């Protein structure tokens, strides 16, 4: 605060050495006002689209009547929260949400690390660049196209089944069998994200001093030892942070992808909390009930991210705040 004041005073002095102090102060206010005018539209936009819905989430605790407004409506306490937990579907939804996130983490998290370590071993720079460029591409393909391709390829007469037929295996209707949903979801998720995920690890690996590797080579270290004792320690801090945040995002499986991929026949494994909220809320109009569920999810992920941040600060001395 003191520093700000000082710089402001310096500014005033710089500004108008000839004018009186009062006029300088006026000028000072004026330039701050210009800045305020510039920042105002952004603040208004954020306020409307980010803050008003936070206030709107209060309807989770009341029997909302749009004519009476949020504070005029009747408060019902935690009615909608207990309603969710007494719903026979609740257990399945929570289980599906958790398992989908867990499998995505289990297979989706190590995949880019392994790819990055392998890419780092490529000696020819041009070849490496080409592989990188190709592997990033799926990240930019829209979800509709990705799921559309999944549905084409895994259909009864699709690419995968014709390959199975060629090798004499049975045709499986992948898309209608609940047991295949998670596998396809996680697998295609890796296809979409593995290349893009390597960027952050490759950035960490590019900071490794090449002399380390050369010295190790002279001392007779083989490739595996170099990876284990040089590359891996180099990406460990990044990995820790990424892992902690991946864990905190375990409930946030890509809801848009599930929405495109699932069908009533696979609900027993594919229906997650967010899709349930979408169906009951947007399509069914049960606003208060679904807002309560959404709020619950938000609170859980908030707790997770705070815990993750704490853990990351303790373990790696890196944190968001």
């Amino acid at each position, binding site marked *: 605060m003191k520093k700000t004041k000082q*710089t402001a005073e310096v500014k005033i002095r710089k500004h108008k050495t000839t004018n009186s102090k009062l006029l300088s102060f006026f000028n000072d206010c004026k*330039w*701050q006002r*210009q*800045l*305020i005018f*510039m*920042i105002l*539209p*952004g603040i208004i*936009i*954020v306020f*409307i689209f*980010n803050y*008003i*819905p*936070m*206030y*709107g*989430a209060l*309807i989770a605790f009341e029997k909302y009547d749009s004519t009476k407004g949020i504070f005029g409506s009747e408060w019902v306490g935690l009615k909608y929260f207990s309603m969710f937990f007494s719903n026979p579907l609740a257990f399945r939804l929570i289980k599906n949400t958790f398992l989908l996130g867990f499998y995505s983490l289990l297979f989706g998290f190590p995949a880019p690390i392994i790819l990055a370590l*392998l890419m780092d*071993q*490529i000696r020819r720079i041009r*070849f490496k660049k080409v592989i990188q*460029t*190709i*592997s*990033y*591409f799926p*990240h*930019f*393909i*829209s*979800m*509709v*196209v990705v799921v*559309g*391709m999944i549905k*084409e*390829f895994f259909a009864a007469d699709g*690419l995968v089944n*014709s390959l199975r037929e060629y090798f004499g295996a049975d045709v499986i209707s992948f898309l209608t069998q609940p047991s295949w949903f998670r596998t396809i979801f996680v697998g295609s998720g890796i296809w979409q994200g*593995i290349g893009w995920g390597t*960027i952050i690890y490759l*950035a960490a690996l590019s900071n490794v001093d*090449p002399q380390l590797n050369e010295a190790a080579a002279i001392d007779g270290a083989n*490739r595996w030892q170099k990876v284990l004792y040089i590359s891996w320690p180099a990406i460990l801090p990044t990995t820790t942070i990424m892992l902690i945040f991946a864990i905190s995002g375990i409930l946030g499986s890509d809801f*848009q992808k599930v929405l*495109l991929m699932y069908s009533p026949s696979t609900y027993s494994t594919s229906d997650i909390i*967010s899709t349930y*909220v979408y169906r009951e*809320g*947007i399509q069914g109009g049960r606003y208060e009930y*679904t*807002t309560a569920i*959404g*709020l619950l999810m*938000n609170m859980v992920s*908030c707790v997770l991210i705070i815990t993750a941040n704490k853990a990351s600060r303790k373990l790696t001395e890196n944190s968001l705040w």
Partner: protein
Amino acid sequence: MTFKNKKQEREIRNRIKRSKGDLIFDVVNAVIMLMVAGIMLLPMVHVLSVSLSSGPESVKGGFFFWPKGEINFIGYETAFKDPLIMRSYLNSVIYAIGNVLFTLFFTSLTAYPLSISEFRLKKFVTIFLTITMFINGGLIPTYMLMRDIGLVNKIWVMMIPFCVGAYNVILFRTFFTNLPAALREAAIIDGAKEIQVFTKIYVPLSKAIFATIGLFTLVSKWNDWFTALIYLNDEKKYPMQMILRKILFNTAGTQKMSNEIMNMMSSMKVTSENIKMAAIIITILPVLCVYPFLQKYFVKGVFVGTVKG
């Protein structure tokens, strides 16, 4: 070891003898990398091949990566003739460009004052923005807000909401902060207004960050279908992704096509497979065109957030 240039580096590295094990590893690794690249590309190649295959071949399915039968472009012609597809394509272009303009304009304007150390509201605004990174109202309250302010089924809902986001503001601010502060001070002393400093000095010096955020926003908006799913209910306003979803996921989409196309389809000149796959390629095409430009900014783009769609 430091090298004068790449050529010298390669020469010296080649002189270092590779052990047999090393060599085997390199070969295996290269094969793995080629396989990875293949897995990344083959789905797209297959889609392209089906779209170009002759009608009867395209519906048979199968495992192939080259057009079967006579190569035909009727799938594309049909898609381009379809008024629904063409309108939605145009809609997508408008939404994506509109969203980019709103995003760049308001985000950079918000970030500029935050990059000035003397700005008195700096701390407050930073906290105000950071909170939105962790807490949000959720799907339903957001929907109710859009309904209450009358944005449902308006094209503006595709361009304006959330055009100022905390991540992008931080990126802009960081970039602006790295510009020499003396530039601004000198201009202010010469009597320039803040807005002039911003438009005449900061914007021209910040092309890189404008390009980064602009391109990533462009692609993410082009790929966006969910906003349209929730807020738009008039098919004429649908973006391409929504029409594509219709074409790919249920037959109702193909039924909507004109009689002329139906006739062609019944004569097997063009099949729904042709059209579906052609539609996918047409949808990806703009992203493919932007991709070379995007490439420059990949590393920065990691921090722009995910490209959802």
